[in-house]
């Protein structure tokens, strides 16, 4: 050993070591988390030294709840640990900023108008003045202003808008409440008190998997990540946990050492692929072909060749497989029709909503559990296979194979028609004799499993007909033997473990136009193996942080339900498709409509609004407050008479829905609040359309042509599309992001380490807090305090303009989990004379709401009585005593002669949310279970008895992450330390799913689904280039543009963080295959242009063989704010990922008033798909 290396032992000679030790010292540690829609909800410790937030490290004190599963610590990723960089960064606006031109106009106007509302009017009603700032949005030129001044401008614009156009022209976009619930609630509560509109996000982000409501009647409910550890086989598809579930990914790597097998489906060698046993580079967007073929193998081998008892029992009890479908004669074969209804064979209340099965003796029976038995009945809504009329056990038949069969016509994309025999029985109904078949038999035939029946069945697995392993090869690029092998493994694992087959799935499948089909194929593989509702099994769909655990109490506070109902809640995909005028550029050719249905997405959407399927704001081409005034002036005395008057006007055409003429000035949205999100940047599918028409900025790169004119029927076509619909855009932010750059007013908000708030996620079962390590620096305020500031100024100005309360009519769609979900058994359009317009039945509800504008502030800061009777997902509970209890514990506020719980401080808001929620108050959970017992008719509440006294407070969650309680609002049973797995309550306690049959629905019998050949899980190809209207030229490198979530940001947050930029390539990049790059003369790190008719991106190239040929990856989501040169195509600054996308709405996702196909905010509706996109890529020409 070298003589020069000697260990030095004596610490006293090493006093210099203090140097680093001093750096490690700190003054204070505070628990917080990041409100960034990452699903992490990780608990962090924030270190404060010398009054400065210096760094953060993960908390590692998650309580163990199951010693056989690894602990959750240390949750928190590379993005989260970069958060402290933002606090004092030069990117942070430290004071209120306002567009300089607007500030000048305002100060000038205020000189001649003492009334701020008049001042605002003088600006926006003068086209020249209005244009002078609107048409400069995004061009810089901000100036610092004071809080008083900006609050006055904002309030003046609101009052002006309410008076002139109506409150439904004021919108707010803030996403994902769960990431910071109180901050979400701040602006939402204010907007709903004034009658404004809250925009959805989950569907717009395309995070909502429509297949979930389709199959389970549930928005999304998924396994917490600890439950991955229980799995025996894990398929990871369209999801990259290492990148996007970073704090959870260890459960995946660890599960492998417990013997779980892992298959990763990803077209590129993604990060999670390294931990696969089998990496399957399936062609992007065609995963469903793989799984339809796998289903073919699974069903053939595990149901027919060697039936597995467990699977058969599961299919009988928990799926709609045994339910009867009517067959309709058509030419030489039969067509699949609607489910057979009780109303067709017997007299029952809600008989049109109760389905039938056949028992083994051939009798038609009516089992418990259909959705018609949920409403107006007691004790019949459960999964017991008993006759709802007699209570007798039903020996239900899954198949009718032993007997007659009839030819049924199936249609397959890329193949055409196929006539296959299906076992069927002739039965007698009120209408006469008809054939019926079980869903099970229809599906087996649809899959191509002949079972000895005649018809166009494939001979064997090598026969290239739907849906064999050989057939799928041309769509997936994966060999048949891999499909067979995997399907067998899947089946065997499912049988051996009784359902511990897990699918981790996400946007890689969900962002395609046919996302529901993509999902349904693999959901079917789970259902076939009895894997839903089992720990370690099921569909673990992970996207945004969508799960607000205490949803009932939170939503009441957030949407001011303690004061007023209903709120105005808008599905963003429809709203932005229409209001950013994307519909004008859309031929809608990718929808080939069956006869009798609209031909263009906007016409579908108009119909959906008219029939009460989807919301739409502004509602009418009139101010809703004026409308009520006019109704009253015309003699309407009661709310009912007001409604009647409005319906009459709609019917005779004097009053129109705003969506019928969205470009008319009176139908524009006017004021837009943005907080906690980046809707002009990361979330704007069709970003350049946003810039041009909605925002009105002069630098849109939009190149598409307006083509809709000849393809639309109902919507009014105006020759000139508006540019700059909004009067005012207000953004609350702690970083100067793309939305802030394009806003008129930027308000400095608190960072996540500077406020108190609540956070929850579906990835774990704890409730977490955000905590203030320091006060917000400079002039920043928390979101709650910002909206309080605005509310106070608003109320002050309202004294003059609305001295009396006014009445507003709120139009709202037919809602899921209410009796409205059983209103439209058939599609009947009152406008076409097919039925009468009846609000809440054949058309939207019309609610008359009183607005007390001068008291908006008082209501904002105090808790109204509406909190005492609340609920969610169809269960409800009373909290009179809880209100009294909290009134003693929390600060109170007195106004109008009454003492109420004060909501002035975020901590009080948190306490209210926690105390009124079943998930954090055992007594409330008990009451909610008791409520559900009435419908279900079974003992449920006993499972929560041991937890009845648990009460989680805000100081509890500040001290340590706290595990939530089992609640009937959700579907997972986590009693006795079980990991959260969805639908375990349904399976354990025989509680129905909230679907038509009450079971997991394979067959979707809504008439539109049948018309589009999407009633059964099936395969449809990606949208073809020829219908996209995106690429003009055919030469050059044309690639499928894919935007998965990446390593260096969470959406656009952290993208601009110096830590992340340093560890990545320092700016916007596109990943392309090395051979593709070579063919286009592109080298690594070259500047390139990426464009199509929607817009253009200028960025750097990353060349890598990890990416397959023919596709390119731009990780979601860059900002327009950093290091982007100008484009040679447009001469303007290049855009971002969304610059080359646009929204395409799938009509089947608009249907409503039909069981699980009923609207709920962020729950149902068309989604913002964006993967069926092609771009041309070339080197930047300078």
């Amino acid at each position, binding site marked *: 050993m070298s003589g020069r290396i000697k260990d030095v032992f*004596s610490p*006293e000679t090493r006093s210099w070591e203090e140097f*680093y030790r001093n750096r490690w010292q700190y003054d204070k540690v505070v628990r917080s988390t990041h409100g960034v829609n990452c699903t992490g909800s990780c608990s962090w410790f924030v270190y404060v030294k010398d009054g400065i937030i210096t760094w953060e490290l993960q908390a590692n004190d998650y309580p163990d709840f199951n010693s056989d599963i690894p602990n959750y610590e240390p949750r928190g990723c590379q993005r989260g640990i970069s958060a402290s960089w933002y606090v004092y960064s030069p*990117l942070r606006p430290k004071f209120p900023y306002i567009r300089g031109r607007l500030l000048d106009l305002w100060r000038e106007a205020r000189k001649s108008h003492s009334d701020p509302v008049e001042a605002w009017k003088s600006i926006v009603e003068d086209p020249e003045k209005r244009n002078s700032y609107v048409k400069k949005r995004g061009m810089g030129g901000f100036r610092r202003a004071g809080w008083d001044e900006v609050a006055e401008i904002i309030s003046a614009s609101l009052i002006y808008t309410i008076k002139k156009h109506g409150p439904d022209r004021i919108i707010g976009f803030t996403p994902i409440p769960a990431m910071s619930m109180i901050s979400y609630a701040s602006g939402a509560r204010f907007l709903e008190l004034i009658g404004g509109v809250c925009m959805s996000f989950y569907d717009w982000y395309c995070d909502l998997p429509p297949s979930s409501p389709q199959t389970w009647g549930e928005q999304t409910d998924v396994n917490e990540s600890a439950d991955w550890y229980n799995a025996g086989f894990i398929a990871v598809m369209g999801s990259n946990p290492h990148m996007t579930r970073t704090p959870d990914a260890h459960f995946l790597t660890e599960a492998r*050492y417990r013997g779980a097998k892992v298959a990763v489906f990803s077209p590129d060698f993604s990060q999670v692929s390294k931990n696969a046993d089998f990496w399957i580079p399936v062609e992007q967007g065609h995963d469903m072909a793989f799984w339809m073929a796998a289903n073919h193998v699974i069903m053939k081998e595990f149901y027919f060749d060697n039936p597995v008892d467990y699977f058969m029992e599961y299919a009988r009890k928990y799926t709609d497989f045994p339910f009867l479908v009517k067959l309709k004669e058509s030419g030489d074969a039969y067509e699949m029709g609607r489910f057979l209804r009780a109303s067709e064979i017997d007299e029952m209340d809600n008989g049109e909503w109760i389905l039938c099965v056949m028992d083994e003796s051939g009798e038609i029976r009516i089992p418990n559990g259909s959705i018609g038995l949920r409403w107006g009945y007691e004790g019949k809504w459960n999964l017991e296979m008993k006759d709802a009329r007699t209570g007798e056990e039903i020996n239900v038949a899954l198949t009718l194979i032993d007997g007659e069969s009839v030819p049924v016509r199936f249609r397959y994309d890329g193949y055409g028609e196929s006539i296959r025999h299906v076992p069927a029985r002739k039965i007698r109904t009120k209408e006469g004799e008809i054939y019926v078949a079980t869903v099970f038999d229809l599906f087996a035939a649809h899959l191509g499993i002949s079972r000895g029946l005649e018809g166009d069945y494939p001979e064997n697995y090598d026969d290239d007909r739907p849906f064999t392993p050989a057939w799928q090869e041309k769509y997936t690029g994966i*060999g048949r033997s891999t499909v067979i092998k995997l399907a067998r493994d899947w089946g065997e694992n499912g049988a051996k473990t009784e359902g511990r087959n897990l699918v981790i799935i996400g946007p890689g499948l969900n962002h395609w136009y046919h996302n529901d089909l993509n999902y349904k194929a693999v959901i079917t593989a789970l259902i076939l193996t009895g894997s839903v509702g089992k720990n370690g099994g099921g569909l673990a769909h992970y996207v945004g942080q969508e799960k607000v655990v205490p949803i009932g109490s939170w939503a009441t506070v957030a949407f001011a339900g303690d004061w007023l109902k209903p709120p105005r809640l808008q599905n963003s995909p429809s709203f932005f498709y229409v209001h950013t005028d994307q519909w004008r550029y859309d031929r809608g050719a990718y929808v080939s409509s069956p006869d009798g249905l609209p031909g263009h997405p906007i016409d579908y959407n108009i119909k959906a609004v008219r029939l009460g399927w989807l919301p739409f704001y502004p509602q009418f081409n009139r101010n809703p407050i004026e409308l009520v005034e006019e109704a009253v002036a015309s003699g309407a005395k009661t709310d009912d008479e007001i409604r009647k008057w409005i319906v009459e006007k709609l019917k005779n055409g004097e009053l129109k829905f705003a969506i019928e003429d969205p470009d008319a000035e009176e139908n524009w949205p006017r004021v837009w609040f943005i907080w906690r999100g980046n809707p002009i940047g990361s979330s704007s599918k069709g970003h350049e359309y946003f810039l041009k028409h909605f925002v009105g900025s002069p*630098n849109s790169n939009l190149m598409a042509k307006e083509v809709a004119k000849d393809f639309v029927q109902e919507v009014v076509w105006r020759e000139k599309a508006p540019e700059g619909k909004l009067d005012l855009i207000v953004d609350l932010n702690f970083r100067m992001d793309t939305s802030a750059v394009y806003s008129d007013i930027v308000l400095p908000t608190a960072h996540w380490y500077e406020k108190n708030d609540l956070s929850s996620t579906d990835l774990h079962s704890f409730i977490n807090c955000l905590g203030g390590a320091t006060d917000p620096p400079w002039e920043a305020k928390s979101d709650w305090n910002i909206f309080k500031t605005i509310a106070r100024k608003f109320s002050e100005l309202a004294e003059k303009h609305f001295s009396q309360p006014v009445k507003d009519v709120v139009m709202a769609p037919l809602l899921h989990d209410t009796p409205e979900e059983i209103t439209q058994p058939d599609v009947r359009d009152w406008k076409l004379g097919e039925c009468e317009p009846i609000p809440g039945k054949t058309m939207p509800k019309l609610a008359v709401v009183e607005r007390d504008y001068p008291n908006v502030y008082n209501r904002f800061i105090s808790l109204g009585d509406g909190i005492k009777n609340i609920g969610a997902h169809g269960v409800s509970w009373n909290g009179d005593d809880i209100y009294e209890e909290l009134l003693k514990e929390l600060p109170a506020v007195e106004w109008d002669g009454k003492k109420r719980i004060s909501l002035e401080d975020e901590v009080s808001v948190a306490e209210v949310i926690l105390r009124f929620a079943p998930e954090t108050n055992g007594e409330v959970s008990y009451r909610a279970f008791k409520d559900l017992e009435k419908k279900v008719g079974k003992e449920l509440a006993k499972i929560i008895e041991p937890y009845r006294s648990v009460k989680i407070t805000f100081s509890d969650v500040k001290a340590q992450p706290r595990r939530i309680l089992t609640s009937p609002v959700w579907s997972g049973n986590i009693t006795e330390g079980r990991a959260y797995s969805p639908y375990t309550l349904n399976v354990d306690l025989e509680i129905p799913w909230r679907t038509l049959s009450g079971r997991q629905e394979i067959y979707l019998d809504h008439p539109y689904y049948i018309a589009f050949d999407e009633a059964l899980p099936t395969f449809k190809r990606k949208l073809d280039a020829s219908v996209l209207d995106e690429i003009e030229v055919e030469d050059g490198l044309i690639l499928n543009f894919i935007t998965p979530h990446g390593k260096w940001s969470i959406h656009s947050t952290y993208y601009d963080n110096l830590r992340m930029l340093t560890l990545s390539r*320092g700016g916007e990049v596109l990943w392309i295959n090395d051979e593709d790059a070579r063919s286009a003369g592109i080298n690594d790190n070259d500047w390139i242009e990426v464009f199509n008719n929607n817009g253009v991106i200028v960025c750097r190239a*990353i060349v890598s063989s990890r990416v397959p040929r023919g596709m390119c990856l731009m990780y979601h989501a860059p900002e327009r704010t950093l290091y982007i040169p100008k484009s040679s195509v447009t001469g303007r600054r290049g855009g971002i990922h969304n610059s080359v996308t646009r929204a395409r709405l799938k009509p089947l996702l608009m249907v409503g008033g039909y069981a699980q196909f009923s609207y709920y905010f962020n729950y149902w509706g068309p989604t913002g798909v964006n993967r069926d996109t092609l771009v041309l890529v070339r080197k930047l020409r300078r």
Partner: protein
Amino acid sequence: MDVRAQLVMIFHLDKCLGCHTCSISCKNIWTDRKGAEYMWWNNVETKPGAGYPRFWENQEKYKGGWVLKGNNVRLKAFGKLSTLLNIFYQPHMPKLEDYYHPWTYEYSKLYEGDEEDDQPVAEPISLITGEKMEIESGPNWDDDLGGSPLYAENDVNLEERRILNTFSRLFMFYLPRICNHCLNPACVAACPQRAIYKRGEDGIVLVDQETCRGWRFCVTACPYKKVYYNWNTGKSEKCIFCYPRTETAQANACAHSCVGKIRQVGVILYDADGIDDVIKSRDRDLVDAQRRIILDPNNENIVKLAKENGVPDSWIEAAKKSPAYDLIKRFEVAFPLHPEFRTVPMTFYIPPLSPILATQRIAYDVEDYEEIPTREMLRVPVKYLSSLFSAGNEEIIHEALDRMIALRHYMRAKNLGEEGDESILTKVGLDADRAERLYRLFTLAGYEERFAIPSARREYDAVDVEERKGMKGFGITTGPRGGI
């Protein structure tokens, strides 16, 4: 026998997510300051790849580490003469562009800038000069096989470039790196100022910030390129193994923040007298030789010798509880990085498993497999791993992989509710008890189990401990001017 204690870190590469959280916790606490911007004491590299600084493993270029000539081991870059000649010039030292030119952006222009005729953007500027610049390299430039034709394909460990272009064989994994706190540290040996030392009580290697004169011999000598020159202070700095944290029995910031739970930290006992034998071993014997000097903390004789050498009881107890001995020596699944550099590194890596190979005839098909794929089917070539972790000895890598796969096989049976087949285990030198321990260390081990770190024993220091209690943290105090 000279028994000493050393804190070591073990990285389970199969579990590494490549997320870089470790790098940032380190950056936030230790190198977020002028002169240290470009330093990443902890970094994570994609393998195959070039790493940071670029192609650091190529000692033909950088001349780091030791070389064995006959029975002599000497620094590759320096003889006594060349030390004198090179005192003002380090010809083999990485240049800034081999690391990267650190940058930031003109962020505040976004809200403070004047109105323009197009949307303003924040342009990059140098963190060193403040001038505008183009971004052409970074500390993690070839992340996830980015620029694979330029970087991954030229990885010195990769035998066949074509693997990277063939979907049926393509692979990647991640390699997190800190200072290895070696037993035979080249940096210590190279320093003409003797500013670098290895701490006796825990083996942490430190650059004394008072003594260092910035000669940068250490930068050249370290074959891992884990000593960095701070251009602002004129001194070299490196990973300090978070001694302020480990001294107080807390895991290093990088290990604490490792969200993939790949890191374990603990005490090993080793025989310092054996180091000479290790560094003089033939390449293929280097790992075995290194294992030999790591001592069994449960052996009574070893314990006795350790005590005699002043290793505190609490450290011996920690060594017994430590995951390190089990993973490195008992189960032989953890390996040193590039042992052929002969610095005897004290961080250890468990090699990764990988997806099974596929065929690409008409369509892509995975290879036929049994219940759990065997080692021969894995994509990462053992040869590649042996180039990284065993100086080319493929057999010992085989053995480790087989052990990990057998564990999976055995545990799968138990997971399915079947009897585990112990013969699967015995073939690879495990039994039910050992498998249980290995399984726990790979999966269920909690914070205290992963990080068996004893606190420092400062009470043994020379001065009055009671006085230290009252004085600690006041830093530099001076007497009153002009005396009392």
